[in-house]
């Protein structure tokens, strides 16, 4: 008799999904739920980043640009025009996509670290611009969102659980998109570009177009996260929306968790947020430097020990302890 939990990987995914769906109903501590929401959100941002940075190895450190554009678009539409954030969130995504076109055209001329620097620069320029836009974007002080109480049609909820499920839905969306891309010709092309752009061109891959397309998707998704975040914390200002920390976190969770893998960003976020929560409970949130110090130590260690991220560790363990690992050809789509 074969045991279902050792031979069928989807079993574990079902378990995971069930746990995720039930979690906010079981856990009542609002602080805990808040952490879960943050994990979901940053895992989502990480998944969005991973499409570009993990598969195609275009290491953007400026994804906060799209996070912020999404956030500001929906907020401006809400406060200035009374438009529901459900529409605003899509509008934000579209704005981000449009922005990614000129930014990509500019930055893709550079490879490696200089691409990263250029993306940092574009995010910073946007932050600086929004710091100056007093008239329709509230400048440096930012603004709070009007508290409409429980207004689901305006993406405002009384219960934290609602935000949790929304974040979960976003993450599921991101994972679903990644999954579909991974198993299509686009997934192959992305990895080819990530491995060797010149060789990819030689076999007919339009590397410019692929990069542009994945950037569109990545920017769109990141912007959705931006809108959600602002709706959740009821406050926006340029330093929050375009924060360099968001760009870093987006990349960090993928790198630590497993660059270019489906679950990598999720693993990475859980690890980093758990560490962060632990540190907060030990040292209190007063010591600004401790959290990032430990983060960076973790990052350095992962890079030196397992540069492709920790998902590899988990899948090796999984393979060792189950039979499912033996039948690998259907699992990893890049296998063919």
């Amino acid at each position: 008799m074969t045991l279902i939990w050792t031979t069928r990987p989807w079993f574990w995914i079902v378990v995971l999904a069930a746990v995720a769906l039930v979690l906010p109903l079981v856990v009542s501590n609002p602080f805990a739920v808040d952490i879960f929401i943050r994990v979901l959100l940053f895992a989502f941002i990480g998944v969005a980043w991973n499409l570009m940075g993990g598969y195609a190895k275009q290491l953007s450190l400026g994804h906060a640009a799209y996070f912020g554009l999404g956030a500001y678009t929906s907020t401006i539409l809400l406060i200035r025009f009374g438009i529901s954030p459900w529409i605003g969130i899509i509008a934000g995504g579209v704005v981000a996509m449009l922005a990614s076109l000129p930014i990509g055209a500019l930055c893709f001329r550079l490879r490696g670290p200089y691409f990263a620097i250029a993306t940092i620069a574009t995010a910073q320029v946007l932050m600086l611009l929004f710091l100056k836009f007093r008239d329709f974007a509230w400048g440096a002080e930012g603004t709070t969102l009007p508290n409409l109480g429980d207004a689901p049609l305006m993406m405002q909820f009384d219960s934290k659980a609602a935000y949790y499920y929304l974040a979960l839905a976003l993450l599921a969306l991101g994972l679903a998109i990644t999954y579909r891309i991974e198993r299509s010709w686009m997934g192959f092309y992305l990895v080819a570009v990530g491995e060797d752009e010149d060789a990819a061109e030689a076999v007919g891959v339009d590397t410019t177009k692929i990069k542009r397309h994945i950037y569109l998707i990545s920017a769109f998704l990141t912007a959705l996260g931006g809108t959600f975040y602002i709706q959740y914390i009821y406050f926006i200002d340029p330093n929050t929306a375009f924060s360099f920390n968001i760009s870093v976190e987006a990349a960090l969770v993928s790198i630590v968790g497993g660059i270019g893998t489906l679950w990598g960003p999720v693993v990475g976020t859980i690890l980093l947020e758990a560490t962060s929560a632990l540190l907060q409970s030990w040292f209190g949130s007063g010591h600004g430097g401790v959290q990032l110090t430990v983060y960076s130590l973790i990052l350095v260690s992962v890079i030196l020990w397992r540069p492709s991220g920790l998902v590899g560790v988990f899948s090796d363990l999984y393979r060792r302890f189950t039979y499912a690992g033996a039948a690998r050809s259907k699992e990893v789509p890049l296998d063919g």
Partner: protein
Amino acid sequence: MLATLAQAVVNGLLIGGIYALVSIGVTLIFGVVKIVNFAQGEFVMIGMYISFFLASTFGVDPLLSLLISMPSLFAIGVLLQHFLIRRVLALGDMPQIFLTFALSLLLMNIALLLFTANYRTVQTPYSELTFHIGPVYFAVAKLIAFAIAMLLSALLYLFLHGTDLGKAMRAAAQNREVAMLMGINPDRVFCVAVGVALALAGAAGSLLMPFYPAYPLVGQIFVLMAFVAVVLGTLGNITGALIASLMMGVAESLGVQFVGADSGLIVVFVMLLLTLAFRPNGLFGGWAR
């Protein structure tokens, strides 16, 4: 009006000298070791704190503390290359970027923990001293910093072109494999390159102390300027980095003077984006020593 312009240009040039020290270090490491050091600014910060503590504890003038900060940072550079950078050299772009990036975060936050976010300054007899030529004022401390920065740059040039080790470095920068075939030990050359680059960063830090405060995040601004200068001046080109740094100092200064007090940064970023748009290989084209 002309006086204001001249003043802005002078101010820009003087601070540009400091940017030059930082950017030469970045471009040197990039040219020889082929890796971008995101943490370069933090080594400037370390240089600043070294000078600060020498000044506040022993009363050592920051300029004199160059004799301590530069060798210390050279040593740190050698260790950095030998123990950390060497490990990731074969791994490709991504781990390399994130190693120095993580290092940058690490150093900033350790500094935050150890020294708190407070600004630390050093007052020297010449910190407030100025003199003027016509309507243009020169801050003595900045002028000295500029002069020493140029001196160090010249010394570096002599080193790279006049000494065997320097030539070995340039050879390794141009073609690593052939250099190895000629008996050049890459690790030794890399250690020296990183050491020198960090020593220059430390020098920048010491030179800054008489007129600039030290705080954990201070490196960020300088590394940003350095990166833009390195791209502008063409990757790996030391003279290019020098000239570009001076240009950027002037551009920033003009921005602050004529556009707005908080516009220095935007001007710099716009310069970067324009360069990327029209001359992605930098102002000096191709690659150079």
